[in-house]
């Protein structure tokens, strides 16, 4: 049995909007194992985004526990969470979310800056990562000078900057055409198979989700169905 890398136990997230209480998560249980490729699916309003925020340590639950590497992170401060995110989790967003004023190389190196690593080391590492995503010749370009697919590959390289255990991809192909989307998914799959990275993919697209080993279906803030693609 592989060990759990992220475990959500009875997680609730309640937003208070004036008089109204919106229950985005209602007792969500999720267990992500090391090296797993997990897809989270569900219709809009199912709590996917909130779940991603919790898994990605971007937000803390109203109730319940989030265990990252067997440590409860649900009570940590914003700055501590930031440190954990920086080291352990790599984010890939639907809108790529690159910093427009920085070059591809600087964007990839930025997460390493926040870990206080010296310039030489991080430039070397960022260069290598851009070569892995086949953008070795686009390093000095700013995001606006790159195509959508290229930007998403820069974002993948950035997600890998601090060699995190988990890659969290929120609709990574949502803004790409299908063939570019396939390329991006190919990279993610390669990361999972060859590098052994744990990948958590949020999508509403079945074709995208099919790359995963396991699919969790969310509705009304909790898992309603789990599907395993392989027999493990």
């Amino acid at each position, binding site marked *: 049995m592989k060990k759990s890398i992220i475990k959500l136990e009875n997680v609730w997230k309640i937003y208070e909007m004036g008089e109204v209480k919106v229950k985005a998560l209602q007792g969500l249980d999720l267990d992500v194992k090391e090296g797993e490729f997990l897809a989270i699916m569900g219709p809009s309003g199912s709590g996917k985004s909130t779940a991603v925020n919790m898994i990605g340590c971007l*937000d803390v639950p109203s109730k319940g526990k989030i265990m990252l590497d067997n440590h409860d992170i649900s009570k940590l401060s*914003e*700055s501590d969470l930031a440190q954990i*995110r*920086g080291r352990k989790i790599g*984010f890939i967003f639907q809108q790529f*979310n690159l910093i427009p004023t920085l070059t591809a190389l600087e964007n990839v190196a930025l997460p390493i*800056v*926040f870990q206080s690593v010296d310039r030489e080391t991080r430039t070397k590492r960022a260069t290598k990562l851009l070569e892995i995503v086949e953008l070795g010749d686009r390093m000095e370009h700013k995001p606006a000078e790159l195509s959508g697919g290229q930007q998403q590959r820069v974002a993948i390289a950035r997600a890998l900057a601090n060699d995190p255990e988990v890659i969290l991809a929120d609709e990574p192909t949502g803004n790409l055409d299908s063939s570019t989307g396939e390329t991006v998914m190919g990279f993610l799959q390669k990361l999972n198979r060859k590098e052994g990275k744990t990948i958590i993919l949020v999508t509403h697209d079945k074709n995208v989700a099919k790359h995963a080993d396991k699919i969790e279906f969310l509705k009304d803030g909790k898992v309603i169905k789990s599907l395993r693609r392989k027999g493990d």
Partner: protein
Amino acid sequence: MLKDYFIYSVRNLRNRGLRSWLTMIGIFIGIAAVVSLIGLGEGLRIAIMSQFGFLGPDVLSVQASGLAFAGPPGTGVVEPLSDELADKIRKVNGVEAAFNRYIKSGTLEFNDKQNIGIAASYPEGENRKIFETMINLKAEDGRLLKDSDSRKTVLGNNFKNEDIFGKGIRSGDKVLLNGIDFEVVGILEKKGSFIFDSVVLMNEQTMIDDIGIVKEEVNVIAVKIEDVARADEIKGNIEKLLRKERGVKKGEENFQVQSPQQTLEALNSTLFAVQLFVYIIAAISLAVGGIGIMNTMYTSVLERTKEIGIMKSIGAKNSAIFTIFFVESGLLGMVGGVIGIILGMIFAFGLSAAGRAFLGSELIQASISPFLVIGALMFSFMLGTAFGVLPAYQASKLNPVDSLRSAK
């Protein structure tokens, strides 16, 4: 790491080029005003000090006051001092010597060129030596005046320079004062005072005979006192005598008894008041500039909310976000300050150069000390950071989830 934040901040400021410059205008106008006006004020103070500074504290001057709008001291007043007053003042307890001085401006001509010449009388008889010691008068070239000299003059040190008449004046040269021939018998040693270095000295009798001053209308009575410690008391006695002689009541004096030192102090306090005023105006301008920085930084936080969210999601701590915005506003202040200092220096030195070129006045000079430059620089940086604290704090406290969701 700070270096990286610094580079990132510079990049952001350059990216918002026009807005950054507009924000900085507020700062550099304020700093330029502070640097140039304080520099000029300080220069003026030094210039004034050098005009009178060489006169000792044992010298008092008596002048009639009234409608003296312009011209040399003691000229153009309604009720001038009479010529017997000096003899009476000399008898006041504590007074060592007192003598009349006449001053009149005229046209000095040499080498076919004209210039303004301030003719001043040289006391005669026993007062001659006292006068010479009192202002430490020495001839650099030629000699000083003697009682028997008529239509002879001793000139201030500036006249030996070529820039006034295209040719320096030497002892033995002939000059024309108001069209009358004078022989230059000596050039004085340099005093560093514009007034004394530009003086045209001649015997009292020559001034009466040839320049047309009236013996009964004295411009200034120079008084030398015996004991500096009693200066106030002696001054009071002289004032008492003058009130009696001129028939005025206390508080309605139409004359002034001043020591050059006191004059300097009075000038200094006036200058200080002017400088204070300038400081206040500059402070207001800088406060407005600072609020400009704050406004720009708040806008920047709003515009870059998503960027902040991204940075937080990839591991930026609150302190990192704070530092980025804090450095940025500090830079806005400091770059504004550097430009302000340069502009202020150009303005101050330009004005003093223009003053020398067009007015021939050495009173307008700039004195910008390293202290002023460093102070202005530090102040502008502090101003930037002070007004940047709140926006930077706001940025650092943004919730990553909400920031990422933000449209921009």
